[in-house]
């Protein structure tokens, strides 16, 4: 069925502009509530069955890579906030990792712990958005109110307290973090993690094992392991196929080697598995946050680094496990205060490609379920 990993070969067929002789042409988006941003998918159908689907991108393109060539290294952190705007913390972190590969800086231990706590909180917040909006896509409204409106708000409040911003943080800096946590912040995080464990159980009863939700997602949009590897899929989408791939374990960064956590994997790689892996990941993130809170000690939060600096010539690739997959920054430096070339490896962009073959053969009513389960953020797709 939809498990063909080969590329479509006829260009006219893969980018339709009009209906085929015996079928229908549907232009989904760019203004459609279920595309989670401005994405257009050109779909042709035969009866109810999708015969071809081609995403049309670029509505949100802001030329981040070109802008980066004109800015100094610390100024670029602000740009990275705007990529995956639901997970700006991990964007900052990934960029800083890449710069720190080029220019080794000793990062104080406390800064590394704060990075882990913020990064994992961000993962929970991002998955809460996925859970809420995916529920809406399928037709369940309540999960949105609890996951998006209640738990995510709590996390954003915590972020606001530590760095003053709710969405675009600019908190993780080259060599450390912007500021130490305010008094009592760690206790608030601990209180939140305790509550969150109960909330995830609530999601299970509301959505995960809801028979209507399972009917709409079980056995739909199946992505096999080989197909996922060929198309470069990373993150929860890859793990849903049953393949254990996680940058935190495969290429550890920060203090992750010290942390005890599991990598939840799915079994068949359908929409429900992709959903379920994310819910389990929230549990694992809570474990990591609790361990980090136990181990964190007072200390410096910024390494010894000059206000203005030049990065030595060379190239560096830093990547980490962002909520949506393997997010990387490839930086080529020529020794000047700004990068010669910066390339972003955006997990959403690369994960979205598979839609061309994944949607084929499924019913038109499953399109939204499959598109939602890939969990893309258009800010990162279009950059």
């Amino acid at each position: 069925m939809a498990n063909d990993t080969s590329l479509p070969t006829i260009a006219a067929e893969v980018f339709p502009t009009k209906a085929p002789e015996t079928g229908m042409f549907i232009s989904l988006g760019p203004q459609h509530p279920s595309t989670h941003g401005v994405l257009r998918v050109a779909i042709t159908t035969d009866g109810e069955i999708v015969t071809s689907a081609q995403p049309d991108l670029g509505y949100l393109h802001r030329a981040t890579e070109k802008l980066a060539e004109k800015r100094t290294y610390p100024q670029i952190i602000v740009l990275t906030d705007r990529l995956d705007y639901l997970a700006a913390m991990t964007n900052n972190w990934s960029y800083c990792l890449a710069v720190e590969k080029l220019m080794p800086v000793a990062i104080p231990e406390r800064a590394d712990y704060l990075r882990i706590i913020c990064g994992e909180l961000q993962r929970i917040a991002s998955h809460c958005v996925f859970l809420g909006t995916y529920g809406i896509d399928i037709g369940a409204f309540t999960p949105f109110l609890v996951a998006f409106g209640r738990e995510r708000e709590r996390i954003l409040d915590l972020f606001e307290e530590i760095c003053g911003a709710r969405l675009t943080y600019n908190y993780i800096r080259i060599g450390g973090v912007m500021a130490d946590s305010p008094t009592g912040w760690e206790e608030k995080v601990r209180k939140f993690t305790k509550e969150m464990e109960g909330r995830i159980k609530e999601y299970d009863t509301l959505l995960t094992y809801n028979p209507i939700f399972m009917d709409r997602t079980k056995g739909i949009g199946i992505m096999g392991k080989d197909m996922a590897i060929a198309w470069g899929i990373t993150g929860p989408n890859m793990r849903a196929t049953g393949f254990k791939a996680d940058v935190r374990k495969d290429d550890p960064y920060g203090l992750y080697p010290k942390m005890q956590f599991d990598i939840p994997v799915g079994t068949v790689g359908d929409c429900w598995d992709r959903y379920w892996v994310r819910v389990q990941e929230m549990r694992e993130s809570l474990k990591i946050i609790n361990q980090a809170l136990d181990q964190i000690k007072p200390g410096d939060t910024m390494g010894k680094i000059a206000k203005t600096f030049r990065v030595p010539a060379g190239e560096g690739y830093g990547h980490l496990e962002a909520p949506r997959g393997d997010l990387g920054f490839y930086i080529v430096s020529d020794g000047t205060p700004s990068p010669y070339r910066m390339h972003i490896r955006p997990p959403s962009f690369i994960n979205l490609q598979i839609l061309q073959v994944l949607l084929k053969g499924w019913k038109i009513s499953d399109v939204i379920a499959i598109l939602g389960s890939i969990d893309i953020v258009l800010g990162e797709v279009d950059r």
Partner: protein
Amino acid sequence: MNNAELLSAIQAKFPALKEIPKVEGQARGAELYLDVPDAQLPEVCQYLRYDPPLSFDFLTFMTSIDWKTHFETVYFLNSTLHKHTLVIKVRIADRVKPAVPSIAKIWPAADWQERECFDMMGIDFPGHYNMRRILLPDDWEGYPLRKDFVAKADRYD
């Protein structure tokens, strides 16, 4: 396999391929960097992908760099089986009509990334089934990530 073993395994099949040595004083990752001529790229990639001891089945990402005198495409490869990594660099001397053979048939992951390189850097990928602009509008003029690109004022400026 470590870098030395990888290099000897690849050179056993393609003796002409050379490692790109690390420049003294410059920062670079620990991966093996391989210089591949553009004409040989599909053949080399086919071997890297399907030879069992190598089996580089995962294209992490690909990108392009404008070095003012020439272009360069960069491929970061990974093996999900053996967990080793490799970086391939292809030098494109032709600045007027830069082209590199497409590898999207070997790694479908390169599909949109090659289109992005075409869109931003103007490098053509012969053999790609759908080589069009991807992020910019179809009627956009020029290739913005080239170093000699001059932004023209449009109706929004």
